[in-house]
């Protein structure tokens, strides 16, 4: 493939990243941030999968078999523990505005300057080889793709990998050093990284599918064919000697790497916007690892089979296979996928390293030398930015040189593991630091330095020997012929592979010294304070400003000037306003700064220049007083009590609020019930007044007019009797209803025959039916099962339904059909009339008390207005149901069902 096409495509891809990042930053500026999405967060974590994964895993699988898997098993095992470890680290960093792993360690151990610098140097030493293998992978893939050696052998200016390094540097500078405050999130960068993670996954899986199903006939076919390869057996099994140790140490190594690699720390901790995003990442990230590994073995063995006779670097199989099959487009995409895997690592790692270097190496230098400090104090932010940018270029340059000098001689995985082992040296100090309050600065320093020396001696020295810069006798005979000091068999330890060997010794000394020296040494008060806050971060995180014990005198104007110098006029102004909003009433007339303000300012500075430099700056403007550890602990203890008291109070007031809420709703309910009762009462009295009015008026007339005609007199008396009946019926109904509603109504349950109930009810109304000339049909199934019921009550219901039907059926040609049958375990009874029907919207309301009486559009009934309400209550108290089906103009059908088996006599 044409060399310039590949170069062109590579730069187009880089341009795409620029575009994506700037788009994301614009969105975020417009308030529609992409990074507030947990999927972006989880994807950005997949920056873990670099060119090492993309190319190296296949290479490793082709030559070392299953062992490539170990470094994915580690992170997968670690993911569930994130909730315990990573969440705590995130919270600590948020609260203390920590931006790098060096700052984290230095901050925990009393904001110690030297410790931060040491960690930074180890990081730089450890990570530069890692960056260099990314450059190597890009250059190597380019060679394969173009079929030349141009990429790696020409002069510096013809060397494309050099330009690629420069291009990456530019991207990183533009999107990684926008603001001085390293706690500012790099949304553009994170979005680009997440995109790259997705891209490399898709392309790798596509290539895997192509190899597995395009070139071969699926997994089975590849494995079957591969089984005849001479080393197959060995690749697919553990070596008896060191196999298990190797697996164990690789898993441990990668568990630590996923937490402490500077780039992982950057995306997982610094760029985290929401702790809850961890929940998603905890399953999504392992899933990502799984998917990207599915096709590693097929591609590896496929490559072994296809290139059995030709010499092709196993690391490049994934690219070489599509190319040899003539799939140039796929090959180009695969190349870009690898390119994206490499670039994402380089970008994030250089940002992390540059912040570390500027905050932990350059700043202390600048601020520690009084001449420099006074000269540049005003321009500090500019210097900071430029120093970071220079660091980025420096890191890339070093990586390039390392690649040229050393990395070319080793495989991707070999170099990568050396980096892993370097950052693993931070594990005791960090893990101990967040769970063990007794860990001291001296212990951390001793452990890290010892671990680093052993790492250097057992891993880096041999690699220098390997490229011929040191005599080989160091490996074979030991330095100065001391066999006990042979880098691969230190103190005579044999039988481990070199990584396990290095990890064993470095960790052994690191952990022992960390614990041992910590127990023997004393903490300063500041250290103790940080230890308390780190270990108990979830208790202190809301009250950071008062959790740091500080005693001394500082003046507000000095603090302000400090902030202005490092944050700029505008941001300093905002910061002061925020502080006053959080702690109103802390303005001292004398101009003395409250300790809370000092802590607040120090925290802000830490976000810009790192915690130890911030400490130096603050102490330079304040007269601090020495505090004893006892005092620190005492004050912290008090503030802790305050916090728990606060929590208690908050809990109490929550309970109170809940209780109030309940009371209020209960009151509301009572009020409603009261209103219902009022309404019911006023309706009842109104209904009582009507017959009473008639009776009184008629009686008075009778009394005043003794000479009345006999006929009139009889008519009046008859009406009085009827109205009295109406009155007593009404009273009976009201009392009935009241008893049902309050649950006082007792039912005399006995087996009842429904036919009899219906027959008896019809008989009671026979005369009325005949008078009105209504056609009444009774159609009840023979041998209906008995229902357990109160017979008189059922008759009451039936009479009510039938008299309603009589009242409302067609006045000229009335027809009523009563049917009863057994269905679905119930006895069902229907009363159908041919009246004008009921509009469906009233079907519920007609069962309400006094519905007809209240609704004046319906003719006032002759009944009490309570019949249906009572009937429904009666049926329901028998565990049955009553309803109506009707349409306007088509008659009405009232139905009820009663269960044949009533388990227990029920009240309403």
């Amino acid at each position: 493939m044409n060399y310039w096409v590949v170069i062109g495509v590579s730069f187009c891809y880089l341009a795409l990243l620029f575009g994506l990042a700037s788009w994301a930053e614009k969105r975020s500026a417009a308030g529609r941030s992409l990074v507030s999405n947990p999927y972006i967060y989880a994807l950005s974590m997949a920056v873990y999968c670099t060119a090492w994964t993309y190319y190296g895993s296949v290479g490793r699988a082709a030559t070392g078999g299953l062992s490539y898997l170990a470094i994915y098993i580690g992170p997968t095992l670690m993911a569930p523990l994130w909730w315990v470890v990573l969440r705590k680290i995130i919270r600590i960093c948020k609260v203390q505005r920590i931006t790098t792993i060096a700052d984290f360690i230095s901050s925990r151990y009393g904001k110690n300057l030297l410790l931060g610098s040491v960690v930074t140097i180890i990081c730089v030493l450890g990570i530069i080889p890692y960056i260099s293998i990314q450059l190597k992978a890009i250059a190597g893939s380019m060679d394969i793709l173009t079929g030349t050696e141009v990429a790696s052998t020409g002069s510096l200016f013809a060397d494309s990998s050099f330009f690629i390094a420069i291009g990456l540097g530019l991207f990183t500078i533009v999107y990684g050093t926008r603001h001085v405050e390293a706690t500012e999130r790099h949304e553009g960068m994170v979005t680009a990284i997440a995109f790259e993670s997705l891209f490399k996954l898709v392309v790798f899986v596509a290539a895997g599918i192509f190899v597995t199903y395009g070139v071969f006939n699926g997994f089975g076919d590849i494995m079957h064919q591969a089984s005849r390869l001479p080393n197959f057996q060995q690749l697919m099994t553990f070596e008896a000697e060191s196999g298990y140790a190797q697996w164990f140490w690789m898993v441990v190594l990668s568990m630590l790497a996923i937490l402490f690699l500077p780039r992982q720390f950057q995306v997982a901790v610094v760029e985290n916007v929401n702790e809850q995003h961890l929940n998603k990442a905890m399953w999504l990230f392992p899933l990502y690892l799984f998917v990207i590994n599915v096709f590693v073995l097929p591609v590896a063995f496929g490559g072994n089979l296809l290139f059995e006779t030709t010499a092709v670097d196993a690391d490049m199989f994934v690219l070489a296979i599509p190319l040899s099959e003539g799939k140039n487009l796929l090959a180009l995409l695969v190349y870009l996928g690898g390119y994206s895997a490499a670039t994402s690592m380089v970008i994030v790692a250089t940002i992390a390293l540059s912040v570390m270097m500027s905050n932990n190496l350059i700043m202390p230098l600048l601020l520690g030398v009084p001449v420099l400090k006074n000269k540049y104090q005003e321009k500090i932010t500019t210097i900071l930015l430029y120093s970071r940018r220079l660091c980025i270029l420096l890191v890339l340059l070093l990586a390039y040189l390392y690649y040229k000098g050393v990395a070319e001689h080793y495989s991707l995985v070999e170099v990568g593991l050396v980096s892993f082992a370097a950052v693993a040296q931070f594990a005791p100090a960090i893990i101990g630091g967040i769970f063990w309050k007794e860990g001291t600065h001296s212990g951390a320093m001793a452990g890290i330095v010892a671990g680093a020396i052993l790492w250097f001696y057992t891993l880096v020295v041999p690699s220098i020997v390997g490229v011929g810069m040191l005599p080989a006798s160091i490996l074979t005979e030991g330095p100065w012929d001391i066999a006990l000091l042979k880098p691969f068999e230190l103190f005579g330890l044999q039988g481990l592979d070199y990584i396990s060997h290095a990890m064993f010794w470095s960790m052994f000394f690191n952990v022992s010294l960390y614990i041992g020296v910590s127990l023997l040494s004393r903490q300063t008060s500041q250290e103790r304070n940080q230890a308390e806050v780190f270990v108990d971060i979830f208790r202190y995180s809301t009250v950071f400003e008062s959790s740091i014990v500080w005693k001394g005198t500082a003046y507000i104007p000095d603090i302000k000037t400090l902030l202005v110098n490092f944050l700029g006029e505008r941001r300093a102004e905002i910061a002061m306003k925020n502080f006053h909003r959080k702690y109103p009433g802390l303005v001292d007339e004398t101009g003395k700064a409250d300790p809370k303000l000092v802590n607040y300012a120090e925290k802000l500075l830490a976000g810009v220049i790192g915690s130890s430099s911030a400490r130096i700056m603050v102490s330079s403007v304040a007269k601090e007083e020495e505090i004893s550890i006892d005092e620190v602990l005492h004050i912290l203890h008090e503030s802790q009590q305050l916090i728990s008291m606060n929590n208690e109070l908050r809990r109490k007031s929550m309970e109170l609020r809940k209780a109030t809420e309940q009371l209020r709703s209960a009151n509301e309910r009572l009020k409603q019930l009261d209103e219902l009762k009022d309404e019911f009462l006023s309706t009842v009295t109104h209904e009582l007044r009507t017959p009473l009015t008639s009776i009184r008026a008629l009686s008075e007339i009778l009394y005043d007019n003794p000479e009345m005609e006999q006929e009139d007199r009889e008519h009046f008396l008859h009406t009085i009797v009827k109205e009295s009946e109406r009155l007593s019926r009404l009273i009976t109904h009201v009392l009935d209803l009241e008893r049902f509603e309050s649950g006082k109504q007792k039912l005399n349950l006995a087996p009842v025959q429904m036919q009899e109930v219906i027959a008896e009810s019809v008989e009671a109304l026979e005369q009325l039916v005949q008078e009105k000339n209504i056609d009444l049909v009774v159609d009840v199934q023979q041998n209906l099962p008995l229902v357990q019921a109160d017979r008189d009550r059922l008759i009451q219901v039936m009479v009510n339904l039938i008299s309603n039907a009589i009242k409302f059926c067609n006045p000229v040609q009335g027809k009523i059909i009563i049917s009863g049958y057994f269905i679905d375990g119930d006895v069902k009874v229907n009363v159908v009339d041919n009246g004008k029907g009921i509009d469906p919207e009233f079907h519920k309301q007609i069962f309400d008390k006094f519905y007809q009486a209240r609704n004046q559009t319906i003719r006032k009934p002759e009944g009490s207005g309570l019949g249906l309400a009572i009937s429904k209550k009666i049926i329901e108290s028998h565990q049955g149901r009553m309803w109506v089906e009707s349409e306007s103009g088509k008659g009405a059908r009232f139905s009820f069902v009663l269960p044949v088996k009533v388990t227990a006599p029920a009240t309403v």
Partner: protein
Amino acid sequence: MTKSKEKLKVLVVDDEPSILMPLEFLMRKNGYQVFIARNGTEAIDSVNKELPNVVVLDIMMPDVDGYEVCRHIRTKDGMNDAKVIFLSAKTKEADIKKGYEVGADLYIPKPFSTRFLMDKIKELSES
């Protein structure tokens, strides 16, 4: 009313037959000319047709209620001097107040005294 004047025209409105019956009897016995309406619509028709001097009016009726009928009477030409007496089972203060607001001359709660009602009709018709 025994005077040689024309007979007083009284419209009695109620949807309860058992109440209309005594009212009709009382009016007749006192020598008034009685008209009867069983709901609001009939009442309005009767008002328009007969222009009664006194209207005894129930409030709660199907279709048009008593308040509405009273409003109609008050806007009707030739009904300026007509007296309206509400006779209602609604006894809440708000209901009574509303009755006077729509233009009633008197509001008598049910159940009522027949003598009181007749005295008032007489009083109002002579004033």
